[in-house]
């Protein structure tokens, strides 16, 4: 039943993306409205799926890697709706965001069920879910920021080159994109900090020491440092626009390594492989 909901939401997201495509082409308000409505429907099914799934995970204490990807795609849609409610309107984002959501969802079907996290009852404590959720939400915000930064780079290039083509007409103003990316940066950073702290406390409870220098920990620290530098430069010097957008994209590549390579192949207690 739960898997059916997941599949259904994948299908509905695809339809919604087509709707956003129509909006991107025509910039008609109705197209946007229908696309968002369809997206919301898909999101409801996806949420239902996760209600079932979280119950299942807590009862069986088994967490497969494929569900992390699924959860990330759910989160991205949630963040999209959060930003829709904010006063800065960045309507065409859906067209760029949904491919990422769809890729994550489809990828999650390719990973076999057997890639488990060693997640035994012995680890059970409130710090663990806190660590997992804050970690995943930090990923969500940073990924959303990456999409926004990508849009920024596309828009900025057209304006700088004085060749005002498709993107100039369809994409939101640079200033708005920059501000949304900034929000994503702050929120992602806060969640990442929480994830590291709660992870450390949990590690202390479970293993007796706060920091164990596993590959995952190291690369997360690098990611944290990148974003810390970015925030520092933005607040003090005023790094923004293109430079900030490129930094975001650089952070994304580090994240890719952290999420796919380290999680699946490296040895250590974060890994899902062995």
């Amino acid at each position, binding site marked *: 039943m739960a898997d059916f909901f997941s599949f259904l939401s994948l299908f509905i997201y695809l339809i919604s993306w087509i709707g956003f495509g129509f909006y991107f082409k025509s910039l008609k308000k109705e197209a946007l409205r229908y696309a968002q409505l369809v997206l919301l429907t898909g999101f409801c099914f996806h949420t239902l799926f996760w209600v079932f799934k979280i119950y299942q995970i807590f009862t069986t204490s088994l967490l497969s890697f494929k569900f992390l990807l699924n959860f990330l795609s759910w989160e991205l849609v949630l963040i999209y709706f959060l930003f829709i409610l904010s006063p800065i309107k960045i309507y065409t984002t859906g067209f760029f965001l949904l491919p990422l959501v769809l890729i994550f969802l489809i990828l999650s079907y390719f990973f076999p069920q057997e890639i488990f996290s060693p997640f035994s009852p012995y680890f059970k404590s409130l710090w663990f879910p806190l660590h997992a959720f804050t970690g995943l939400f930090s990923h969500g915000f940073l990924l959303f920021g990456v999409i926004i930064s990508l849009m920024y780079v596309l828009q900025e290039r057209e304006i700088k080159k004085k060749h005002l083509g498709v993107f100039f007409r369809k994409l939101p103003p*640079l*200033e708005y994109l920059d501000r949304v990316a900034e929000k994503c940066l702050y929120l992602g950073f806060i969640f990442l900090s929480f994830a590291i702290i709660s992870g450390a406390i949990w590690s202390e409870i479970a293993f007796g020491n706060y920091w164990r220098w596993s590959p995952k920990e190291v690369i997360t620290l690098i990611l944290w440092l990148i974003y810390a530098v970015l925030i520092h430069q933005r607040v003090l*010097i*005023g790094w923004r*626009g293109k430079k900030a957008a490129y930094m975001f994209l650089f952070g994304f590549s580090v994240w890719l390594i952290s999420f796919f390579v380290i999680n699946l192949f490296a040895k250590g207690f974060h890994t899902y492989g062995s």
Partner: protein
Amino acid sequence: MGLDITILLIGLNHKTAPVEIREKLAFKNPSSHPLEKIKKEISSFKEGLFLSTCNRVEFYFILDPDKKNQFLTEFFSFIERESSFKWKDLEPHLYFLENEKAVKHLFEVACGLDSMVIGEPQILGQVKSAYKEALNYRTSGLILNKLLHKCFSVAKKVRTETGIGGGAVSVSYAAYSLAKKILGSLKDKTVLLVGAGEMAELACMHFVSEGVRKVIIANRTLSKAIELAEKFKGEAYSLDELPQALIKADIVISSTGAPNCIITKTMVNSILKPRKYRPLFIIDIAVPRDVEQEVNKLENVFLYDIDDLKSVIEENLKERKKEALRAQVIIETEVFKFQKWLKELDFYPTLRALSEKAEILRQNELSKTLKKLKNLSEEEKKAIEILTKSLVQKLLYYPINFIKKSYHEEGKYAISLVRQIFELDEPFKEISETEIEDLYLKIEEKSQSQENSSKNTDPEGILIQ
């Protein structure tokens, strides 16, 4: 029966006639409108419309086909008298379009397809006021009313369904839309004018009307800067203080007459840090240019000179031309619809439509009743059928007689009226019982309350007396 009216268009525009001819035919004399004169002097037309803008002068007439030649000779002599042109000299510049082609032309004009700047929106307002004039002088009748209303709805449709009005096509609007794409909302932004020239002032007006927060002026002679600053309620700087002014600004409009560059790359580079890398949009409309080309390479600085803006406009015009093709399709279908309306505006088509509609209603009601009454004999069924038929025939006798009798006097008015009353030009839709009940209930309530109020006021009236 075919059409017994002709829609005639006589006109000239920027493509067919030079401005010397257009201005003489524009009838810009405010004391007398050409329609007023034409109405007095020429009697052989039914309806008329006069459209005059800086790019075109057009007369639309509705005529009897038989009287066309008589009308044309009268009209030619009228024009000769009014414009001091010989008809022979004028004729090569004019275009004469009839019926379908005239309708199509009017639609194209209203949509801005025939304008110098394709898709410009002012023309629709000009058509609207031309129509108002025609109403004023009572030269617009049944046909023109329908034609113009159709024309307005076509223009609206074309505007919403195609991108004919999209993209900036003037320098100041192009600058404005670029600023919006870079800076988002302009409400909390500051504009810096470098040089207190007229060009900069004009460009600035656009930003001011869109609500920028503040205007700063930097000029070689400070007194002129102060003068302009008072006008915009802003601050004035001399050119030496340009870096300080640049720190505060978000949008720079430069238009000095200086022979070399005033804003250099090193100058802008030095203010980036104090500005905290806030985006800066520089518009250089001066020739020779005021701003070094290299400035555009700096981070978060966007420089557009006058040629850049012009190429943006050209791109937009190309885009509009593409959209014009899509507009043509819409216009053609609407012309077809109008022609259809015109053809049906006749005695026999209306009669047919009316009796068809009545027959559908009769059949529907009959089948409903027969379903309820199952135990009827064939004879009884026939009797009911005859009853409904004669009821419908008797009711329709009045409108049909009305059209027939008044057809020669009021022309197509009677037909149009009947068509409107019976909704013959709209697709058939079933009227529900509740709708009918509601309607009658409301009427009854109103009439009762009116009776009551007249009763109530009576005694008061006596008291007052």
